């Protein structure tokens, strides 16, 4: 349940708006990166290496967030990094939601042994040390965009399955569903017309939180060296690269982490707000 909302009487939607604003801001940055980034994020300039952010001594307006060990502009790298991090988050949400919702609908609608199996699997999954399994799979079969997305979806589908299952179970007892069954509406059509629309709002709520979780998890995986590597690194990869220079250039680690924190905060605020609006009882 939302805790923050009550803090500002009469402006209950303010924090949700802030959250949505943050996400929109990051998304715009990702889309418009080539236009707004002051430099090419991969352009090496050894003469400018390790410059601190502009508010510190030795920093300059030319590189507002400083430069890294190869003289690449941190601001440009953070802006471009949003592309990978957001893409991973969005893709993981779509794949996870598709798998989880389907399983949740089937288990919730048909009940019986299908449902029992689901609850056992959910229990097993929760007791799995997810991050360990993830680095195990990725370090064995190799990282990259889609492997990371699939592993994150593997960790997230349970959340959708649980919520959707609960919703479907309550929808199924409604009179209009009974009525539809009794006049012989085919099961698939029934699922599509009455059950699916009801599951949409809980799915959106879970998606909002799990997008935030996916961005955090991607960062953790990249940090452990099994994430999405490439010319334009994700925030997690930047964090990992920066770690070696923690003693001399802390901003290499601080900036991408800050970017992650802000984006995740946006997702969490949105999730809180949507949860409040749609259904105060799902979630915790």
């Amino acid at each position: 349940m939302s805790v923050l909302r009550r803090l500002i009487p009469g402006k209950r939607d303010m924090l949700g708006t802030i959250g949505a604003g943050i996400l929109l801001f990051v998304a715009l940055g990702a889309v418009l990166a080539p236009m707004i980034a002051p430099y090419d994020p991969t352009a090496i300039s050894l003469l400018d290496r390790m410059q601190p952010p502009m508010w510190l001594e030795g920093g300059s307006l030319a590189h507002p967030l400083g430069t890294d060990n190869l003289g690449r502009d941190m601001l440009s790298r953070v802006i471009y990094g949003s592309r990978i991090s957001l893409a991973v988050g969005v893709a993981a949400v779509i794949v996870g939601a598709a798998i989880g919702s389907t399983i949740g609908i089937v288990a919730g609608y048909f009940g019986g042994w299908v449902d029992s199996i689901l609850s056992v699997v959910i229990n097993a999954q929760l007791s799995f040390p997810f991050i360990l399994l993830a680095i195990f799979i990725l370090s064995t079969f190799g990282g990259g965009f889609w492997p990371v997305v699939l592993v994150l979806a593997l960790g997230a589908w349970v959340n959708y399955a649980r919520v959707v299952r609960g919703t479907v179970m309550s929808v199924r007892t409604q009179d209009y569903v009974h009525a539809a069954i009794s006049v012989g509406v085919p099961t698939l059509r029934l699922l599509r017309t009455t059950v699916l629309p009801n599951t949409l709002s809980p799915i959106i709520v879970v998606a909002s939180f799990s997008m935030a979780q996916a961005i955090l998890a991607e960062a953790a995986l990249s940090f452990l060296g099994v994430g999405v590597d490439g010319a334009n690194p994700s925030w997690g990869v930047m964090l990992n690269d920066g770690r070696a220079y923690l003693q001399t250039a802390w901003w290499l680690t601080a900036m991408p982490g800050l970017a992650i924190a802000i984006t995740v905060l946006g997702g969490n605020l949105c999730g809180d707000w949507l949860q409040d609006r749609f259904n105060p009882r799902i979630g915790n």
Partner: protein
Amino acid sequence: MFRFLIRRLAMAVIVLLIVSFTTFIVGHMTGDPVELIAPENATREAKEQLREYLGLNRPLLVQYTSYIGNALQGDLGFSFVQQAAVSDLIMERLPATLKLAFTGFILSLVIAVPLGIFIALNRNSVWDFLATSVAMIGQSAPNFWIGLMLIAFFAVHLKILPVSGYGGVSYIILPAITIALQSAARLTRLMRASMLEVLNADYVRTARSKGLRQRTVLWVHSFRNAMIPIVTMAGLELAELIGGAFITETIFAWPGVGRLAVNAVYQRDFPLVQGVVLFAATAFVVINLLVDLLYVLIDPRVKLS
């Protein structure tokens, strides 16, 4: 009570079987362990012999059954990379993990429970706003990043604490805070929400209208009930920590189970990874079982049927 226990135990066993089987299958998909162990110039026959010696030529299900049979006797297999028994390696690292887990856990409870109650009682105050905002931000920032920033500030900049490693009290401060901050952020929010819900409950209103003292209402009627969701959440947090704080231990070079596992993954030390996964899952399942039992003590309404 008895039936409940049996059902929970059955579920725990099934869960552990699924977890161990999944790890086992994933491990077998990752390649032939003999290729990793045998010297590069080993002949085909030698490799075949080794395979037979290790029992790797048996059907998968037979291998799995014997693994589980041994695991029940405390034998989790042998790490070829480290040349040591997996259970010995885990037991050797366990004290460090437990030390960190409990320090971080207690620290987070000490922060979260009083703070959560305080801001619930003073809701909409400045303190409430500050604490909830900080908790929200703490939940959103990557935990390992907070750890790195703590190192950058306290160890590199102020030079008052060691960067990483294991030793005296000074070494545990930063990793424990890193763990505690994340867990405290979650627990504070939950404690506040739970306390607010209880304070609005009918029985608390009744207690108030009977003219009971505020203190009695608060501690006898509200606190115990508000603690119920906290116990569940805290149990989950502790269970995760005992399984190994993988990234925190890695950052701080803390010689615990978590770092052991992360290194094992990189070295493709499959028996060791499998052992740690099974260990972590067991810790998780057992602690959750204990939490369920704890409910009976806190909440007499739970009949466990």
